[in-house]
């Protein structure tokens, strides 16, 4: 009865919702009398959006109204662009100008589509909670943990394996497998010593997907937890995730975020670790939660638990593309399996160290997603709901950003260099239509993404990747079978600051071209070559491009990464016992694989090189580690671990990476977005990047 009632409740609301769409679209097509009227309308809507956001922060209806305002302005701009500014039938437009006009229009069309799909995707992040498991552990299911590795050093894999051993799960129901595609004896020995299973394939077809499938056919647990070799799980990983699958028999997998405890290249090179959200934060903080609402969570290849029966139904992990994970989830969804995303970091790993490594990784993702787009196009492939199709579509379309991004970087130059019209409209109208669209979209996205992606950074991220992603995506679009797989390198030490000119070369070219555009624009302005408003508009555009490119250049300046292992800020009660039974109490400041810094009162009683026993208390247990003093100052002491036994190492992993709340707090520390502050920050980096570039170029010439 109740469900019937709620059904009718839904239906009339949905009818009303659908009935509201035609008038909404109708209003988009109302032409503006002139540009001042359009500016008034757009400005009023922007003002209203600002007011609503200020007066009722955090309300869902405010956000949705803002989304509607943004959709309206975007649609209105799009309608106007499509009907009035393409120069069709306008005798003032030369034939050779049409390709430029249509390229720019196509790029804008793409960005509007992605914006709209993005709103839809993140309309209502689900923010799912963990589900409890039965009281009696006998009822808990059998779980296999797969840790995949191929060529990574053992030092990276060890903590992951130890972290898996630390998982709070009945040992008889937990089997840990190290899937070594590198077939290395050291790994086999380590597995034996740690007491886990070791699996190595005779061949290496289909890379990671093949590796997983090989293990899949040789194991039998009800669930499979999958970790990349550098993703160290917390002890609570299985307890938080398996409950969801136990409760929902049609759920195929639970994905958790990939958390990185080391800075990504942007954070490191710009020195903004923990100041701005991590590059992946948007995906795991907003997009996946939004996907989950539409039952379209993407499997990300690691930090997830899968149901064996569901994988059996689709013949194991998909092997046709280089992003086997996303493809697998698509296939599961096609078969009617559901999915869950638990936005609770239950594992952590290393971010890519260098920009080039980052780019390589994203190129692979982009290629893979485009391959799926070709092989299993989400719009047409059977078995998906409309909403799942849209979510997947956006996930894949996103990676086509490179061509539009490059068009935006170069479009104003066509006018400034050659006087080629790139739209058939006066500059006032373009500004009056486009600026409110941009401003409201910025505001709305800042509201949606706030803590997960600061304003304008998107452009920096996309610009960094654009020149590198273009070719692979185009090739994948044309022929999804072409190309090779490469593994993302995670560990690296940068011993000296250097400007990666190889990586930065395209940005230097773009930057110089835009600099030329700036000069050409000023020349045009002073000589009156062209309409002044158009020149000013394109100049502003060029300056914007130079800011984004400048910030990208700043990222290309690889800064020193001195520490081999990142230190993790961690405050736990600790004490040290020296040979003379002197006991000093304090608390840890940060901990890494190699050592620890203690905040301690009477550090002056210690000596450099002195060997001590360090005790760290975590909950009701005290863990002991042999240490050596390597640094001293007034308030703190720096200790390095002496060689640890496997058990001690496992305890260290537990303290460092295994706490259930290890990563939850760090994420909430991210500052919320402030649009103007973010702009200021980007401009600061742009100035920094451009000055450094000029210096580097100058030095190079001097060297010659």
């Amino acid at each position, binding site marked *: 009865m109740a469900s019937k009632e709620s059904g009718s409740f839904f239906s009339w609301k*949905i009818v009303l*919702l659908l009935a509201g769409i035609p*008038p909404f679209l109708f209003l988009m097509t109302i032409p503006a009398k002139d540009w001042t009227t359009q500016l008034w*309308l757009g400005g009023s*809507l922007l003002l209203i959006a600002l007011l609503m956001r200020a007066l009722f922060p955090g309300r869902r*209806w405010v956000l949705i109204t803002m989304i509607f305002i943004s959709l*309206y302005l975007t649609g209105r701009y799009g309608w106007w662009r499509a009907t009035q500014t393409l120069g069709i039938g306008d005798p003032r437009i030369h034939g050779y100008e049409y390709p430029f006009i249509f390229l720019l229009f196509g790029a804008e069309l793409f960005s509007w589509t992605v914006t709209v799909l993005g709103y839809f995707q993140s309309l209502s992040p*689900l923010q799912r909670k963990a589900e409890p498991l039965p009281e009696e552990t006998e009822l808990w299911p059998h779980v296999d943990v797969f840790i995949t590795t191929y060529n990574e050093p053992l030092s990276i894999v060890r903590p992951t394996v130890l972290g898996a051993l630390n998982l709070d799960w009945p040992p008889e129901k937990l089997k840990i497998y190290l899937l070594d595609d590198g077939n290395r004896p050291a790994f086999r020995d380590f597995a034996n010593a740690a007491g886990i299973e070791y699996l190595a394939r005779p061949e290496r077809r289909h890379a990671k997907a093949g590796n997983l499938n090989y293990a899949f056919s040789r194991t039998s647990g009800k669930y499979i937890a999958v970790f990349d070799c550098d993703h160290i799980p917390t002890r609570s990983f299985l307890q938080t995730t398996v409950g969801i699958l136990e409760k929902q028999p049609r759920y195929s997998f639970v994905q958790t975020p990939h958390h990185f405890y080391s800075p990504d290249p942007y954070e490191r090179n710009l020195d903004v670790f923990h100041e701005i959200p991590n590059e992946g934060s948007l995906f795991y903080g907003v997009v996946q939660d939004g996907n989950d609402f539409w039952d379209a969570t993407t499997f990300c290849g690691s930090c997830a638990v899968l149901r064996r029966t569901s994988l059996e139904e689709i013949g194991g992990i998909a092997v046709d593309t280089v992003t086997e994970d996303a493809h697998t989830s698509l296939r599961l969804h096609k078969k009617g399996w559901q999915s869950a995303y638990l936005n609770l970091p239950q594992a952590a790993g290393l971010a890519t160290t260098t920009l080039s490594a980052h780019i390589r990784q994203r190129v692979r993702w982009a290629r893979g997603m485009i391959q799926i787009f070709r092989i299993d196009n989400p719009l047409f492939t059977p078995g998906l709901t409309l909403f799942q199709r849209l979510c997947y579509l956006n996930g894949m379309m996103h990676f086509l950003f490179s061509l539009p991004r490059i068009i935006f970087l170069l479009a104003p130059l066509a006018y400034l260099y050659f006087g080629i019209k790139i739209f058939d409209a006066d500059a006032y109208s373009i500004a009056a239509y486009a600026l409110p669209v941009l401003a409201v979209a910025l505001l709305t996205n800042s509201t949606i993404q706030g803590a997960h992606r600061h304003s304008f950074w998107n452009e920096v991220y996309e610009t960094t990747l654009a020149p590198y992603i273009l070719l692979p995506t185009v090739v994948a679009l044309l022929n999804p079978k072409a190309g090779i797989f490469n593994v993302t390198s995670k560990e690296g030490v940068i011993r000296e600051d250097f400007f990666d000119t190889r990586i930065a070369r395209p940005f230097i070219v773009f930057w110089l071209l835009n600099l030329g555009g700036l000069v050409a624009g000023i020349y045009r302005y002073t000589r009156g070559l062209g309409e002044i408003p158009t020149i000013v508009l394109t100049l502003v555009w060029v300056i914007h491009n130079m800011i984004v490119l400048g910030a990208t250049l700043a990222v290309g300046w690889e800064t020193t990464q001195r520490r081999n292992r990142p230190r993790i800020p961690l405050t736990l009660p600790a004490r040290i016992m020296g040979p003379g039974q002197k006991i000093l109490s304090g608390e840890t400041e940060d901990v890494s694989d190699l050592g620890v810094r203690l905040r301690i009162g009477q550090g002056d009683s210690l000596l450099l090189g002195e060997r001590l026993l360090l005790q760290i208390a975590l909950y009701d247990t005290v863990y002991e580690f042999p240490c050596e003093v390597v640094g001293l100052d007034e308030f703190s002491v720096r200790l390095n671990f002496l060689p640890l036994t496997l058990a001690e190492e496992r305890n260290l992993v537990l303290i460092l990476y295994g706490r259930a709340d290890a990563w939850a707090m760090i994420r909430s520390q991210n500052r919320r977005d402030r649009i103007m502050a973010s702009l200021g920050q980007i401009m600061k980096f742009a100035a920094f990047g451009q000055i450094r570039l000029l210096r580097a170029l100058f030095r190079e010439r001097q060297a010659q």
Partner: protein
Amino acid sequence: MTPFRFSVLLLLVGLFFSNPDPSLATPPESPAVASPPFEAYRQFAKSFTFSELGWRRAVEISGTSMDRSAFFGFPPSQMVEQGQVTVRFSYLPRKTSVRMPRLELDINETSLGTLPLPLGPPEHPTPQSATFRIPPYLVTTLNSLRIRVAKDPNHPCDRIYTGPFIRIDPGSWVSLSGIRIHFPNRLSDLPLPFLYHAMTGTRTLTFLLGHTDIPLLEAAGITASWIGVKSESTPLKFQATAGLPNDPGSLPTGNLILVAATPQLPPWPFIPPVNGPTLALVDNPDDPYGKILLILGRNSGEVRTAALGLSLGQFDASGSLATVSSIILPASRGKNEAPRWIDTRKPVRLDTLVDKDRLKVSGTGSLPVRFSLPSDLFVWHQSSFPLALHYRYATLPGEERSRLDLLLNKQFQDSIPLPSTPPGASDQFRSIPVSLKDLTPFRNVLRINFNFQSGIPGILSCTANHNPRLQGTILGNSSLDLTAIPHYVRLPNLRLVPNGGYPFTRYPDLRGTAVVLPESPGEGDLRIFLHLMAFLSEETGSPGIYLSVTTADHLSAFRDRNLILIGTYDTNPLLIRYGKALPLDTPESRSRIRLESRLESLFRWSNPPPHAYGPEALAAYFKEDRNPLGVMEEDVSPLAPRKVILSLGGVSEASLLSMDRVLFDPRHFSDIFGQVSVVGADRIHSFLVPGDRFSLGHLPILTALRFWFYSHPLGTLAALLLLSALLASILSGILPALAHRRQGP
């Protein structure tokens, strides 16, 4: 041509042939009136400059230019005895030594000669002039003067300079003189001698009114509208005096129209007996070559009947005198059913707009199709209307470059290739979208140009003047289809007054219009009144037989009509009562112009006018201490719903006389728009003043909605916000429920 006539021609040419002396190049003064009283009237002399013949500005001619023509006409009552044309021109500086083309001057296809070669070096040629005698026997009632590029007969195949090489001054002139012929007085000749539509120059119509009572004024107005119907865009000028002199010798010379009832008539000998409504044509006692049209009656009502008889053609035209016995008023015309307007209820065939013979060309040529639209067509944000073009042509075999070009009001529409066709007539059909943007509210010209390529190699084509095998015909069943365009206007809108006389001509017989004149109208009032009546009827082609004239005191009977107020603030009190009392000089009148408040400009209740034409600009205009002749404004009538009041207020009676000249000059028509037009001595400034508006006609619901939202940005904003809030609240309700459902029980 007989040898004798040839020799006479040679003699004449020898006597009068051009003398390219610049010192002679000034227009001749009119010859002084000779002393014998009547003999002086027998002679006439006229001259008109090319600009009066329609060349508004200097014309540059290049080697590839088409022929340039000017037309001038004479009434049959005048016989030309001497004529000459003086062309003022200057060669353009040029750097090339390529042979320059020659320019030939023709009258009625007969060559008068060639323009002389340039004086001075090619880099700095000096202005010069050349005079050509026009043989009088070549002058007919309608004449074409043509300037064309001609080949050198001795070197027809030389390459000629194709760029512009000469500039013809519009101050070039034609002067003609001759004698007037006395015609018998025949009513059947009407509108001769008052109008002869081929005649060049402004026609002056002089009205003599016996009195200024209302039926008599209506009679004069109906007569003026009859002239408007007959005039077919002849420039007109009206003169009018009320009250008649006792001495017939003090009447003006020329052609006169006398509108009077017998009690007002002095005992003039030439007045025929009046036994009812009477029409008569008599000689002007002061000018035997002038005529007086008598519109008479025993009382003013009969005079009005006589005028109706004249305008409806219901009189016996066999003699010089007719008594109008009874009038049968035709059924009233419906909305927009003016004879000269296109009926947009069905597609319009081109042969109803243009004579069939004028839809043909031989060789490359242009076919203009002129048409007038109802002023209330609503073309906002629509793109095009279809032109169904049926045509036939013959071109040379193997010649594929010929084209048919279409222009609407000089704006390019489409170009159709004319590939070579097999022999024999074959009808072609094309439906062409014509841009509505290029349509003007009233007068339009669709130009169909056949552009034939001769296909003969250059060396041969230079010897062949034209090829008779190149033919193009637009078939009469071609049609313009404006049926999809709704009739809808927002009023008041002065732009529609010079463009069709809307809304007064909405009923073309002026059924819905009343003119309010001062108690005793002066010459200025009468001039504007008569001119306006003629203008409105000229636009519609229908006489204003239901015209009503009234005064401020007797307005009540005409409350439900569109009103036209004429006068000054002193003579016509309604101008103050219903108008805006411009120019602004009192706080009270200032309040009548609704200056846009800050709130209004901030919230844009409706689209504000462009700043340069807004109410502030109007206020500023008067603050600058300008001295206008008068003000024309249109306001919503407070007396009846959906009616307007058009005020034509002069600063003084004298300024009304000049206002008439400026207001009806077609060159100023495009300056008239909005709600207030300030008429200055030589130009008109118009302003868009916020105020009440109403609409006439209907729009399809979607268009009406779009137009409303377009006109009311605040409405768009409000509707959007309401809709967004509604959708957002629905979604905010659905989403948590959906989320709950997603997570399961």
